[in-house]
């Protein structure tokens, strides 16, 4: 496809895809900061996989492939899995990765069992239920964009309103508890918001790639700032940028008449590129800046040693 930049503002389909992906990146990038800082980066992956039994159960209950019903079912089982993981963390000495790994593989296993049960039921509508987990950004409509905007505003508004409380319970849960704040409730709340972001993204970029949309913008943002507020804003910006840019690139680069580049994959590679560039180039925390400092320190030490001998 040969596209001029103006097409993205005038063409209905293109505008929906780019806007939808950018909104998704904004929400996921912002919320991802909490899970990355809590060492639960892979919670997106866990929730996305744990949605499978809920998707199947919703399908079994409703008997149709109605998107909203499936998303609600998937969201509920994703939420249940992430709350169970938080419970395991709280009531045992197992670490974050183990808690996530245990819930994720159990839920996914149960989902697979349900999926085969559905497959044997001979219901024609079940075809493509698995494909649901791989995402299709090209199918985004203006209605989806409006839904993203409403739910995203709800999630980001909650983060903005509870910024102080979330920050303290993230960095110093003991002090927050002593102050009388419901730390467990706040943690559960920020996890629930993450589940919401994942469910928005499932449909668009798919299970595996959704994990990246939570992590990469947060990793990139962390390089440029030392404050949580700054990190949240930057990560949101990076997420929106990689969503919008990735979608636009995938549309613009698709070969003429070909199957087209998958939007989710290009978006994730864009986000990863931003993260890698930030890791290397950021002043202060960047790898290259670190090398420079090391060299200076070595030279200073050598000078001082030489001076001391004299």
């Amino acid at each position, binding site marked *: 496809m040969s596209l001029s930049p103006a097409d993205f503002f005038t063409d209905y389909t293109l505008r929906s895809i780019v806007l939808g992906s950018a909104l998704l990146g904004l929400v996921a990038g912002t919320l991802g900061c909490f899970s990355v800082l809590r060492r639960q980066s892979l919670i997106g992956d866990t929730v996305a996989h744990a949605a499978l039994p809920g998707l199947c159960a919703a399908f079994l209950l409703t008997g149709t492939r109605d998107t909203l019903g499936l998303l609600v079912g998937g969201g509920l089982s994703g939420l249940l899995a992430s709350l169970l993981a938080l419970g395991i963390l709280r009531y045992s000495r197992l670490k974050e990765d183990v808690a996530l790994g245990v819930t994720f593989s159990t839920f996914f296993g*149960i989902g*697979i069992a349900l999926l085969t049960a559905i497959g044997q039921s001979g219901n024609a509508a079940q075809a493509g239920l698995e494909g649901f987990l791989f995402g299709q950004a090209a199918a985004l409509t203006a209605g989806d964009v409006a839904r993203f905007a409403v739910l995203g505003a709800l999630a980001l508004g909650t983060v903005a309103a509870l910024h102080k409380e979330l920050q303290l319970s993230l960095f110093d849960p003991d002090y927050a508890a002593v102050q009388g704040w419901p730390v467990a409730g706040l943690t559960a709340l920020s996890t629930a918001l993450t589940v919401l972001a994942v469910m928005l993204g499932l449909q668009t970029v798919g299970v595996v790639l959704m994990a990246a949309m939570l992590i990469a913008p947060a990793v990139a943002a962390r390089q440029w700032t030392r404050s949580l507020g700054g990190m949240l804003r930057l990560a949101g910006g990076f997420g929106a940028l990689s969503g919008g840019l990735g979608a636009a690139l995938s549309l613009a680069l698709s070969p003429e008449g070909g199957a087209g580049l998958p939007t989710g994959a290009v978006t994730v590679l864009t986000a*990863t590129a931003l993260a890698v560039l930030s890791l290397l180039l950021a002043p202060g925390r960047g790898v290259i800046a670190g090398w420079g400092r090391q060299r200076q320190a070595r030279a200073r030490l050598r000078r001082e040693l030489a001076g001391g001998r004299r």
Partner: protein
Amino acid sequence: MTLPFDLVIVGTAVMVAWACTLPGLFLVLRRQALLGDAISHAALPGIVAGYWLSGGSLASLPALVGASLSGLLTVGLSALIARSGRVKEDAALGLVFPALFAAGVIAVSLNYGNVHLDLDAVLYGEIAYTPFRPGWLGLPAAWVLVGGMGLVNALFVGGLFKELRLSTFDPGLARTLGFSPRLLSGALLTLVALTVVAAFEAVGAVLVVAFLVVPSATALLLTRRLGTALGLALGAGLSASVLGYVVALALDASITGVVAGVLGLQFVGALAAQGLRARRVRGRAAPQG
């Protein structure tokens, strides 16, 4: 000689369980429990490359080698990023494997847009088909591949148990004493990558990820001794395989799914037992009045 189907399937499940648990216990202790999941996704570009090189056969040696290489790439890249000290291990892993998977997805869509490269067949290798795939000396292919990997893992963990224990719990001391914790962890992660690829070709990624994490997590809830934990974890894998198979047959459901579910139930049981014990101990320790 043909072995009975039941024996082949349950035997495969137990072999996968044991081959995964041996290195899995150390992964769980090193906060790398999700590595199996990461590798199973990151293997995609390697599989595509192998598929391309072999001219279009999926379950082939090139695809297997390609998958192993991308598994090793995942391990190496995420270790490199984590070692820079700017990103934690979990986030480093989460940065690497989706990027590799995305590269694989793009490669598939560019080159095989019109061919249906059945990803499900790779990610959900089906344990129920193992009896129909002959391997070597009349043994099923899965037994040869996974059993061989399990044997290598057993030799590694058995031979270097002391060293692994030291470098897992106190890498600083291990380095001071002249062991190389980095080399040892590199070897461990390499074995994990190879085991994951060998096993998911036989039984699918879901069961592999479950066996890498859940039996060890269950065992670590029940004991604080590493040797005991290893024994308990191997036992948990055995019982989940047998029980899961029986239940799956009774329910006519996916063996993989039910075995993973039974593993989860065992974990919940261990969690409850641990909780009860903790409460009893606390009750005894509480001051009177």
